């Protein structure tokens, strides 16, 4: 049955395009990785060459690890990212459920208001946010970052999850009501598992910008003990001299946790897709 529909040429073209895109997307990562294992001279002489016996060097990693606080930065980044994602998903899903499920006055208006955040970049409000954080004494705490990132992620989360929750059949929710589930139980036990693929999408969308962000850590939490990884790596970039070995090593290591988180979420994505296909 499938045979009739797949044209071999189409298939090759499709895979060719995807492979090409993959190569382009992975190229910078690849360059960072190979250069992180080379001596400083080798990096500049032949940036695209693979490390060999002469040029291989772990000097970058040694510098980064000797810097000492690197694991602390790592930990800070992880805490901020995971906590922000948790709050974005929790509050986003709750707001989306209310908007999708209950008829109340101003429902549409509320939805629009929440969606407005997608269009207005949160960085415009940086000064106001900083003033607020100073006033509430949250400057140089991880909470400052978590709160800002939660606010930043919520609009898109509400928007996406709301659409998905509308697709959960009313009969299903009514069946649960007849079965005696409370509204909270319906939300947590029924609707959330069903929109898991959408949750994973939202998580992936939000995770990368939070992990990579330099702006807010630099402004809201530049203190040594709350530095994030991206900010921490900046110490190797100077105005006149940049320790490229260290920068590349730090970046290489920074990829790892995101990769792990991504694998976790994308498995959810795939599982969700296949379970939804047979309805």
């Amino acid at each position, binding site marked *: 049955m499938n045979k009739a529909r797949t044209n071999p040429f189409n298939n090759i073209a499709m895979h060719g395009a995807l492979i090409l895109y993959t190569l382009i997307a992975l190229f910078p990562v690849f360059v960072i990785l190979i250069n992180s294992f080379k001596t400083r001279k080798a990096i500049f002489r032949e940036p695209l060459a693979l490390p060999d016996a002469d040029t291989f060097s772990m000097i970058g990693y040694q510098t980064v690890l000797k810097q000492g606080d690197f694991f602390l930065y790592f930990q800070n980044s992880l805490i901020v990212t995971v906590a922000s994602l948790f709050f974005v998903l929790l509050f986003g899903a709750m707001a989306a459920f209310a908007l999708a499920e209950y008829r109340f006055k101003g429902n549409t208006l509320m939805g629009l208001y929440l969606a407005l955040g997608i269009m207005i970049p949160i960085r415009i409000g940086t000064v106001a946010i900083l003033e607020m954080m100073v006033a509430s004494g949250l400057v140089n705490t991880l909470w400052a970052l978590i709160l800002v990132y939660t606010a930043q992620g919520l609009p898109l989360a509400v928007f996406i999850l709301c659409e998905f929750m509308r697709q959960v*059949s009313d*009969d*299903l929710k*009514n*069946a*649960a*009501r*007849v*079965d*005696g*589930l409370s509204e909270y*139980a319906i939300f947590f036990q*029924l609707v959330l*598992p*069903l929109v898991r693929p959408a949750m994973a999408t939202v998580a992936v969308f939000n995770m990368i910008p939070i992990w990579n962000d330099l702006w807010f850590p630099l402004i809201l939490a530049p203190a040594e003990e709350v530095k994030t990884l991206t900010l921490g790596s900046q110490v190797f970039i100077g105005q006149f001299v940049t320790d490229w070995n260290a920068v590349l090593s730090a970046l290489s290591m920074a990829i790892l946790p995101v990769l792990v988180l991504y694998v976790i979420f994308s498995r959810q994505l795939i599982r969700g897709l296949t*379970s939804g296909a*047979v*309805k």
Partner: protein
Amino acid sequence: MTALTLTNVNKSFGDVHVLKDINIEVEDGEFVVFVGPSGCGKSTLLRVIAGLEDATSGEVRIGNELVNTTPPSKRGIAMVFQSYALYPHLNVRKNMSLALKQEKQSKAVIEERVMKASRMLNLEDYLERYPSELSGGQRQRVAIGRAIVREPKLFLFDEPLSNLDAALRMNTRLEIANLHDTLAASMIYVTHDQTEAMTLADKIVVLRDGRVEQIGSPMELYNNPVNQFVAGFLGSPAMNFMPAAFIAEGDTRTLGVRPEDLRLDADGDLSAAVQHVEQLGGDTNVIAQMKGTQITARLFGQHAISQGETVKFGFSSERAFYFNQDGLRT
């Protein structure tokens, strides 16, 4: 004892008056079918009984208890939905036991009831499967099983067979009829299909535009419809309606004759041009035109009638129904 009493129930969505002054009584152990064209409010009525919608006014009593403000799960009802509404992420066993867990029943009770229901519905081999791994008929049985395990006072079925194919529909219909005999429970069944209504019901409630048109046993409604709507809605093929002036000059009423009451008769009053003949083997349906009105005759046995022929039909006068201009029987 009455299982359900509805007294002057009204329901409006904003300005739209969906249910108008509904009064219905369901006796214990009775199988009641709500039937009507789509949009007549029958599903809304079921949802009001279930507690998924609140009645705007009027009283809903289940087993003599006023339940207007009782949440669905406390009303002692169980509902089977048209779309099955199985929890897709739970297997059959968990689907059936979820409500009992919510009621904080002991594990032994849950296990016993699930086993009993699955035996009754031949689902024992499927308990560990997920809804997506079941066929339509099996899913519907699971949905029914989920209702049975709760041992409700009142079963509510919302068009449970509309998603099944014709053969399966017939089987499941029989299963539901058997179930009603075995459980001896009160059941309310909503459908737009008059065959289901006629075959299953102890009592049929015909609804139109949110109003009860007539309540009675299937044969009562069939033999003695109060108005033209009920007469036309029950019976398949539907009753023929024509101006009574066709047989009696000056009569302004509408004449109704059931297709099976028409017979070939050379001296008959109705002469019509045959448009189409459906040979069913056991029956022959003749569709004919008579002065711009289409009439259908259901003749027993096989008849050699060809298209374009003019035939004469007769009927006995006691099988004729007359309706006045408001559609009421006279």
